[in-house]
Each structure stands twice: as structure tokens, then as C-alpha cells.
């Protein structure tokens, strides 16, 4: 690389509005923020193995960098990324709470690293953690049995839909429809379709909740399931849940709880007590496991007793001589894996996202029921406090752990400009029931100082001229990215950059 190519960009942060941003000593070349691994150094090696030549490739070309170069590469990449420890992250519906690092230490214990193909007698520790987490989740959700196998929330939805399908089939019923409110997460629709169901969309009522009349009209002999998020994506509790439950069950359908918003209800209300038959838990949201730049998460599924025989295999249970007393670490713990009688089979190749599950179990044990209830109380208080500070209309309420504000500017632009104020913006333009939606979930782990900082960012943007907002962001690692252009001409690997 020539000297010219490696000099920095002194103009980088001397932006239009005079910001003199902080730019830690680092260089970039003219047209890239950080060269790709392959652009730093690449090497082609001939493949010569004991296998016959016709079974092998001739050569392999990959990046070839020294360890210090790699350490710097990924460190520099990390410096262009925003995590929960970088600042507040009120991304609605994603519950970006602080992730206590001690759970990382537990997941990294050498004893936690086992192969899933072992007999359960030789991995009682792993199976014991799974058994304990199943039990915790069952109590928290008011469910009778919990599978930990689904590797994400959407996988949990899919598993729940499969369970409902199997249940109806066993009753000799061919129910082909799943009802989903228009304000639901996109995954609900996709998960129902993946299992082969027809999706019937329910319009929301004027108050943002389920429209009881529309529900009554949609329910029929074909109804297999109603999928609900409660509180819903507007943060509203479905007050008519008793009536909804009765209507769905009278029609012969089942009721599904999308656990994305469970963080609002811990210790205060349980889906099982509201008449839900099936639910999934987003442990990466509610139980504080880190989101890892998109995953892994885990989406355990709880069901009422009548549906337990249909859960995926294997399930974990305590054996007769076992003991799961709280805090018991010395007793003769004993767990076994078993196949439920009418199991829907497998939804993950092995036992699910083990490392995520063990972190969630440790988090729940740390907080205990009082800590969990307090988490929800603070999550709801924080959302209400933040909303109170904002110069934005919040059309629907009373909301719980999240609210949807309405921007007078383009919500996506507002989000981009908030980046310049050093905070992560909310989810934008969804749910569509609110104009220019800013779906905001501060979570319980932010304190008043941080919430005030967030409010300052929101309100500053609301007062700014359109041209400044539309030109944002200016103080981020990259300027606004042309997503339409990127989609029009997809370049998905470094090979495609050479073309």
C-alpha cells in the first residue's frame, strides 16, 4: 500500500454543522473506512492431501494476516459498531437491556462445553441446567411444560404453531387458519405460513387493541390459533383478554402468546393465567442474553398440560430420586431426556442454542422473583418517564414497557439524526397504525440520567430544520448509506467488488 493511500482523512469530522468530532488515531484510505481482510492480504495455497486428486479442489484463496493484524482489524471494526455498552439502545420490541457479563463467564466454563451426542447420564450438569431453566420458565409463564429447543423467537412461534397443528390433527380436525392482528410482528405471519397455515389478518380497533367484533367475525371452524402479543406492539395490555380467550376456545381454537413483550409482565401477570395455551419466551430479550449483532437468541416454548405430549423431542425431566431444590448444588441431581408421546419431532438439529440458555438460567437465578418483578416495574416506569419528557405525540396508552411516538418529520430521518446525538434510535415506521412511528423501549436498565440524555436527543431533533435532519448522520462512522442503490446492484462478497 502506498503512502498516499494510507493517509487519514483530516476532513472527516469537520462536517457541515461545524462539529469537530472525535476521531481516535486511525487511518483509512480514500474510498473505504476499513479495507477488507482480502484487501489487506490474500494468499492462494495449493491443496495436496491424501485424497485422490479428483476429490479435492486445486487451491484455496483466503485472507492471510498475522495475528496482530487480525486483532487490529476486528478491534477497528468493533470501533465502528454500537452495542448496549456504547450507550442507550431503546430499539422498540427488541428489549436491548444491559447484559450482565458474569453470565458470559458461566457460559465459558470448560464444563459447559460438551458434545450433545453424549448419553444424558454423562452430562447431568448440562441437562440439569436445561431442566432448571425449563422449570423457571414454566413458573414465570404459568405454563406446565417448556421446550428449550427453538433457537430464536421466530423458531419458537413456528414450534408453537406446529404444536397447535398436531393437537387439532389428533382431534381429527382440519383447521387451516391462523388469526393474527395487523399490529403483530412479521414473524407471526411468516411462522404460520411456514407450517402451511392460511393467515387471516385481524384489523386493530380504534383503541389499538384487538377489535372484538372483528375477532368474532373471523373465528370459525377453520380457526386453529389466534396469535397475540400482550402487551401488544403499542405497549397496550389487551384488557379484554378473558373475553378473547373464551371466544377463541369456544370456537375450538387455541391461543398463542408471543413473548416478545414479556418484559412488561414479569411477576405481575402470566400468560398461562390469561388463558394462553402456548407461548414462546425470547430469552435474549427478557432474560438479558446478549443479542450478538443479530443472534444467537433462543425461543423456548411453554404449553399447558394438554399440549405437553406434542412438544419437540427430547424434553428434560427430573427423575424420581432427583432434587431441584433452590440452591441445591450437592444433592443427587438427576435428570433424563425423554420423547413426548405425540411429539412434533425436531425444530433444531440438537438441543437448541445451549450457550444462550445457560446465560438465561444464570440471569433468572441472579434476579430471583423479586428482581424479575422489579425489572418489569422499572421497565414500565422508564417507558412512561421517557414518554413524559418527549415533545412528541404518543397516541396510544396506557402503555407499559414501550410506547410508540409519532414524529412530525420522517421517522427514518429522525432516527438518523439521533445517531448524531450519540444514542441509538428507536424502531421506526412500525407498527404502521401510528404515523411516522418511533417505537421506543428504554428497558429497565437505564437510569434517570440516561433517560434524560435520550429525551434531549429526541427533542433536539424535533426542533431541527428538515434539511439538517435529512442530511444526517454526520458524526457516525459512516454517513447515510444508500440502501436502495445497494439493493439495486447487489454486491454480496468481496469477489463481486472486483467485477
Amino acid at each position, binding site marked *: 500500500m502506498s503512502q498516499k493511500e494510507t493517509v487519514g482523512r483530516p476532513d472527516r469530522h469537520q462536517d457541515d454543522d461545524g462539529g469537530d468530532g472525535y476521531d481516535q488515531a486511525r487511518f483509512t484510505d480514500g474510498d473505504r473506512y476499513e479495507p477488507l481482510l482480502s484487501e489487506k492480504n490474500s494468499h492462494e495455497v495449493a491443496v495436496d492431501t*491424501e485424497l485422490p486428486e479428483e476429490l479435492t479442489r486445486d487451491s484455496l484463496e483466503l485472507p492471510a494476516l498475522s495475528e496482530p493484524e487480525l486483532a487490529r482489524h476486528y478491534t477497528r471494526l468493533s470501533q465502528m459498531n454500537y452495542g448496549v455498552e456504547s450507550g442507550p439502545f431503546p430499539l422498540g420490541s427488541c428489549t436491548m437491556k444491559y447484559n450482565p457479563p458474569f453470565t458470559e463467564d458461566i457460559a465459558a466454563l470448560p464444563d459447559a462445553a460438551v458434545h450433545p451426542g453424549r448419553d444424558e447420564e454423562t452430562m447431568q450438569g448440562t441437562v440439569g441446567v436445561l431442566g432448571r431453566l425449563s422449570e423457571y420458565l414454566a413458573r414465570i409463564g404459568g405454563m406446565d411444560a417448556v421446550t428449550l429447543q427453538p433457537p430464536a423467537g421466530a423458531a419458537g412461534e413456528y414450534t408453537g404453531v406446529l404444536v397447535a397443528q398436531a393437537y387439532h390433527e389428533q382431534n381429527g380436525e382440519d383447521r387451516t387458519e391462523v388469526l393474527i392482528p395487523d399490529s403483530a410482528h412479521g414473524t407471526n405471519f411468516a411462522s404460520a405460513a411456514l407450517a402451511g397455515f392460511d393467515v387471516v389478518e385481524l384489523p386493530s380497533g380504534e383503541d389499538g387493541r384487538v377489535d372484538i367484533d372483528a375477532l368474532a367475525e373471523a373465528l370459525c371452524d377453520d380457526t386453529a390459533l389466534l396469535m397475540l402479543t400482550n402487551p401488544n406492539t403499542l405497549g397496550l395490555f389487551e384488557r379484554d383478554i378473558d373475553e378473547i380467550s373464551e371466544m377463541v376456545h369456544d370456537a375450538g381454537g387455541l391461543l398463542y402468546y408471543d413473548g416478545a413483550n414479556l418484559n412488561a409482565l414479569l411477576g405481575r401477570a402470566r400468560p398461562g393465567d390469561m388463558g394462553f395455551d402456548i407461548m414462546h419466551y425470547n430469552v435474549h430479550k427478557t432474560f438479558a442474553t446478549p443479542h450478538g*449483532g443479530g*443472534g444467537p437468541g433462543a425461543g423456548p416454548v411453554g404449553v399447558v398440560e394438554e399440549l405437553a405430549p406434542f412438544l419437540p423431542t427430547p424434553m428434560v425431566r427430573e427423575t424420581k430420586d432427583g432434587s431441584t431444590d433452590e440452591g441445591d448444588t450437592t444433592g443427587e441431581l438427576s435428570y433424563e431426556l425423554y420423547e413426548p408421546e405425540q411429539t412434533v419431532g425436531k425444530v433444531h*438439529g440438537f438441543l437448541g442454542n445451549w450457550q444462550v440458555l445457560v446465560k438465561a438460567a444464570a440471569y433468572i437465578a*441472579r434476579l430471583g422473583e423479586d428482581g424479575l418483578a422489579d425489572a418489569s416495574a422499572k421497565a414500565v416506569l422508564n417507558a412512561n418517564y421517557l414518554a413524559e419528557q418527549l415533545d412528541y405525540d404518543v397516541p396510544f396508552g396506557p402503555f407499559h414497557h414501550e410506547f410508540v411516538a409519532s414524529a412530525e418529520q420522517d421517522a427514518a430521518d429522525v432516527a438518523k439524526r439521533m445517531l448524531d446525538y450519540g444514542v441509538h434510535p428507536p424502531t421506526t415506521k412500525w407498527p404502521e397504525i401510528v404515523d411516522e412511528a418511533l417505537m421506543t423501549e428504554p428497558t429497565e436498565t437505564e437510569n434517570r440520567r440516561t433517560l434524560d440524555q435520550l429525551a434531549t436527543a429526541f427533542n433536539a431533533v424535533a426542533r431541527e430544520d428538515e434539511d439538517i435532519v435529512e442530511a444526517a448522520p454526520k458524526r457516525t462512522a459512516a454517513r447515510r448509506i444508500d440502501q436502495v442503490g*445497494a439493493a439495486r446492484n447487489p454486491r454480496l462478497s468481496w469477489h463481486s467488488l472486483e467485477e
Partner: protein
Amino acid sequence: MLETVGVEREADLFDIPESVAFDGTLNIESRSERAVTREFELLLDHNDDLVELLGRGHYDHYVPSLVNHLADRQEFLTSYTQYQPEIAQGFLQALFEYQSMLVELTGLPVANCSLYDAATALGEVATLATRVRETSGSHVLVPEQMQAGKRGVLENYADGAKLSVESYPMDDGAVDIDALGAAAGEATVLVYAESPTVRGVVEESLSEVAEIANSNDALFCLGSDPVALAILEEPATVGADVVVGDAASLGMGAAGGMGLGLFATRDEYLRQVPGRLVGAGEDESGRRAYTLTLQTREQHIRRERATSNICTNQAWVALRAAIHAASLGPDGLVELASDCVSRTTAVADRLDAVPGIEAPVHDRHHFREFVVRSDRPAEAVAEDLTDHGFAVHAIDEHLLQVCVTETNAGAVDAFVDTLEVVA
């Protein structure tokens, strides 16, 4: 804060009807961080200290310390899906580099930035196969020897797409080409084969498999993993339309089965790809920048017509796999893979010399693992091995399966000695 909001207690903020309010106990007691850590240490200590010679879809390769330290940087670990690419360039670039390495390894031009695991990736291919085909079909064909979990997941996905899953026979651990040819027909939408197979066999007739799939207007999906792909024939060259597998063989080690769904395919199926794709574009300053792209395939936009229901994926595992691959470099990765062939041959030869043992059962080339026949019942041999500190698979009445990587190679001498006692 309560005053600002205008309530006396937090409880007043909840709009929950009394009929469904919870007033019982969850019976979960809070413990200190120190107590929880100690409790989990003791609980996990109930895992027996075994040398695992286990594979069958989940592999334990040594993960360099560098991978842990870099991937655990909070900016990576605690971030989420890159909805705001301007503050997520680091992760996006790392995922773009991951996709690029898979393109190099598979020879296919499109790789997504992760699915959950090999099993769900294969399931997604079944649904893709129905979408890209002009005429409807009725079934997918899979090898009779297949990891049970993978087959189970596939059956669920296939069922939702109104497809059945049917097996074709294997001949000495590899595809029986004549039998596959006879089994495939107009109603076949997808032919799945693996190399290495679940039994570690390196498949020798992948081009013939591709031909059978092609001639029936079916997709050919190849199952493999990034370590094996470092040396095996390029999937694109043998005619694979899609490659799936568990890419966590790099970056994770033994992780209780937690995986990383690898998915790569041809350009023509780009708009049918499940999961997230990272693309390169430009920012306002004209510099190259990365973003999630072609999102109209995805559930948050397309809902029930999306190519998949996946949202949260395994991005952080993909980051780990990429760092691991980069730290090995082409020389290291090819060496690692070559060892998976030569070491396996050497260990099989040693086991074959043990009275009462035949290894490998299949007269084929092997990668990382192989099947062993025992005169004594396999379950009994496996149990005795466990008592001596070794875990192996018992896969049939007289068949065991043994997997050897650099992480357990040091225990092979002791394993052979033990087998001489218990075989």
C-alpha cells in the same frame, strides 16, 4: 420519576385486569452474583470428565483464544441486527467477510449471513425448492444415513410445504447412484446428499447426483462444512445448487449442539434466499459502506409471503467462524482439513488391529470420523468406554462411530489401549 409520571407507585402504571393479575409466588430466590456463579460451576461439574470422540454433525475443533477475545468485545456481542448501518459498519463488514469466505469455499456466488444450524438450513432449502420450481412436486430425497435431528427438522419444514421426505439407499456408506436414479422422478423437488456424510465418508459421485437432480428438474443440495470444503471439490464445480451445513465447526468448538447454519446458492435464486444478506454500497461521502440488503424477502416486510420466518439469527457465531477462518488463513485451514483425512486413516488402521474390531467399516475415504464394527454389542462397548473416560457413538447393534480432531488426538493412544481391553 414517579412524580414526573404522576403516580404514587410503579404498580399504578400497569393496566392489567384484576382477573388475570398474578399474586402467587414464582418460588425463585435471588442469589448474589458470586453465589450463582458458584452454583452453576458446581451444577456443571456434574458433567463427567470424558474424552469426546463424538461428531455426527457437531465438531470440536480448537478455537484460538483470539476468537474469544475479539468476538467478546461488547461492540460486537451486545449489538443487534444492523437496522442503523451507519453505526453498525463493523459487524456488517465482518458479516460481509464471512459471506465472502463462504463464497470462496463453496464456489457459489451468494451466501447469507447465517441461519440457525445445518438442520434448519436444510429445511429452508426444501421450501426454496418448491418456490423456484415451475411445476409442483411431492417429495424431497435424502440419504438413508443422516443425522436424526437434521432429518426430523427437515420433515417439519417439508410438511409445511406439502412435501414428504423419502430416503434413498446408500452403498457402503456412499450414495447408491443406481438406486437414487430409480428413486428420483418428476415429483422430486430436491435431492440432498452430504460430503462428508454423517458417517464421515467422502462422497465420490457428487456430479452424478447433480445430474440425476438436474434431469428431474430438482434442486441438488449438498451438505458439508467449511473445514471439509477447504480441501474437497468445490460444490459449484460438482453442480450443487445450494450448499448447507454447520459452519460452527469453525469458531465454536463443543457447544452443546449450538450451531451456525451455512447457506450458499446460485445467483438465480438470490431473491429466494432465506435470512439476512449483507451487501456493499456507498454512503453519502462516496465511500464504500455495508448494509443489510434485499430485505423485501424478509418477514418484517413480506410477512406470510417472506422467504423464511427467520429474524434473530446466529450472526455472532458467524463472526466467530470468520475470525477463526481468518486466523487459520488458507495454509492453516487446508492443513487442518488435510489432517482430518490423514489422522482419521491412521486412527482407523490402529483400531482395525484391535481384536474384535473392524475399522473403518466402509471401504471409502473418510473425513474426521468413521464407523467401527465391534464383535460385542456396540452399546456394551460404548458403556465400557464411558467407564474408562471415553465417549463414542453407538449407532447400531454392532456399529460404533469415532470422530478424531486435534482436540482429542492426544488421547488416541489411551483410547486404543482401552479398546483393547473392552472390545
